[in-house]
């Protein structure tokens, strides 16, 4: 498919589960495979509860209850981190190879610690011999490059505004120049103007050489279209659609992806006249997922065969894939008729 040399992150059949207090197992990430190349960004979309945040956590290769690793590989630069000991992952992978921006970055910083002290802790967790002076100089320079005032370092999180806190978290996340950055809804809790700043900052990270690739998770598809190169749509723990950003937004194949596009207000030309449509129903309970297609219950185009056996991910060529038993032609025609 693509040249292996510039693939930064490759995930094969990654499966992780939550174990509840009552020993029930919930497979929130079910055989997910993906690839991110150097200089590229991948967006992951889906409604809440579809497993996209869990996928973000699972990609870190560092699991703590209730999340457990089941199977699959996470390969960064040729190293399979899913086979490594947790302490080695912590020391040599987290923050340096792969970094994470949490969903609620508002509370991601310890409230009783100055930003600079957290930065010191981050550096020293990976290199105990680095002097404080070096760390301070490095942090100052990095913050400056990222457009953050250096005073932020001397402040407590409460003294920063929401947007500033978010940008600080992003800056701290990329301080060790990770190869992959995973941003889980980094802009969802912000107002539109701050959102724009945060997005601009994220886009600039690759140009500034802080990161080599990015995975961006959100429920806002139009945002992904503007930020990422490729988009993956998740439903009930599985990938249902994989395409370039343009294809995923303007020419989705899977009925769920199609529905998702239809339910969003997009001020893009070409989408302006599309009527808003909600997808009826709720996602299946993953404690006991349906045998056949997981979207069958809510699908407009459902057929009897859909509910018989698990649906594989069909390769549609050119890096595209979708999880539906209907052929591309049948789907496109059905969408045409629906208007």
């Amino acid at each position, binding site marked *: 498919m693509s040249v292996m040399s510039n693939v930064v992150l490759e995930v094969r059949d990654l499966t992780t589960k939550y174990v509840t207090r009552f020993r029930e197992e919930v497979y929130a990430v079910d055989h997910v495979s993906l690839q991110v190349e150097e200089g590229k960004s991948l967006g992951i979309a889906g409604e809440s509860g579809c497993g996209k945040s869990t996928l973000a956590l699972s990609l870190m290769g*560092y699991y703590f209850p209730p999340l457990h690793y089941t199977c699959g590989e996470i390969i960064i630069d040729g190293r399979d981190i899913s086979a490594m000991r947790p302490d080695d992952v912590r020391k040599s992978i987290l923050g340096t190879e792969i*970094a*994470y921006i949490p969903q609620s970055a508002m509370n991601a910083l310890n409230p009783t610690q100055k930003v600079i002290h957290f930065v010191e802790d981050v550096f020293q967790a990976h290199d105990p011999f680095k002097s404080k002076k070096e760390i301070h100089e490095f942090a100052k320079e990095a913050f400056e490059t990222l457009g953050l005032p250096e005073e932020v370092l001397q402040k407590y999180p409460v003294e920063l505004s929401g947007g500033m806190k978010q940008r600080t978290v992003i800056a701290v996340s990329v301080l060790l120049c990770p190869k992959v950055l995973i941003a889980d809804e980094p802009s969802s809790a912000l107002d539109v103007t701050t959102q724009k700043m945060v997005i601009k900052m994220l886009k600039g990270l690759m140009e500034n050489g802080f990161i080599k690739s990015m995975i961006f998770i959100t429920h806002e598809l139009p945002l992904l279209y503007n930020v990422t190169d490729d988009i993956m749509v998740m439903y009930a723990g599985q990938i249902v659609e994989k395409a370039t950003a343009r294809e995923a937004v303007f020419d989705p194949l899977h009925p769920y992806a199609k529905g998702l596009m239809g339910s969003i207000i997009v001020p893009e030309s070409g989408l302006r006249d599309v009527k808003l449509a909600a997808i009826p129903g709720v996602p299946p309970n993953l404690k006991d997922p349906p045998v056949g297609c997981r979207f069958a219950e809510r699908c407009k185009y459902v057929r009897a065969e859909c509910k018989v056996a698990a649906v594989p991910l069909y390769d549609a060529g050119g890096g595209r894939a979708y999880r539906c038993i209907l052929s591309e032609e049948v789907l496109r025609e059905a969408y045409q008729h629906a208007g």
Partner: protein
Amino acid sequence: MKGYRKYFLNKLGWFAVTFVCAFILNFILPRLMPGDPVAAIVARMAQGMSNARGVQAIYEQYTELFGTNKPMLQQFFIYVNNVFHGDFGFSFSQYPRTVADVLASSIWWTVGLQLPAILVGWLIGNFLGALAAYLKKGFDKVLMPASIFASSLPAFGMAVILLVVFGVTLEWLPTSGGYGYDLIPNFSWEFVWSVIVHYQMPFWSIVLITIGGQAIGMRSMAIYELNADYVKYSRFMGIKDRKIVRYVFRNAMLPQITGLALSIGTMVFGAIVAEIIFSYPGLGSTILTAVLGQDYPLISATMLIITLMVLITTFIIEILYGFIDPRIKAAQAED
């Protein structure tokens, strides 16, 4: 910084108002008790006296001495004036001892018993609570019920259990007093040892109850903090668990400090039960005799000590918090 100073001046003003109110109540409330303290003293003095005029003379002499024959308002101003000159007057029930003398001989017993007991109980309780939150599973399942049991046991219950087990049944420890009744306070080994032995039961009865309450509080705070977003983020930045645990317990500890300050402030109240049960010669026993003997000046003075201790510890904590928790400092400066 300006807002910060204004906040404290404002707080100080409120503390002053509270102090004045408490001072007035401390004076009035004991005097609202029914009964005449002087009559009780006279009855004691005049035992066997049949001369009614003589008894009357003694009565008048005491009312004159204590000032109870004057109107309440006048008594109050005399009292205020005396207190500001450091004179708390005579103790009614232990006349001719002065209130200052009674307090001086009992307060150190209470402080010596309570302060270490509260600190030890607080430290152990917080440590166990934090450990339970961190280890979970078996340790938590044993510690939690034990803590709930210990903290919901009334103070006298714990004291009586210890008394029966170690004092009466096992006869390991003496059952009452601050030192052996046949000893005179001095710095001999014998006396010091006697004090140590007598110290154990009241001390542990307070420590055990404090441990229970603190452990429960610390456990839930620590569980809350362990699930905070910054813990997850720090983990994903590769920070060692040992360091994260330090963040968590520092933050979980903050509310517990208020609890510590309050128990130090209300130390004297906490002492009453343990001291009475073990006949410990501290302020608690003093309060009991003062109330029973309607000893107005002694009651007012002990209440004044409690009021001051609560106000001072709260104020110190208020200042201290500004330094240890930036969130509270920010809130204080905004006020």
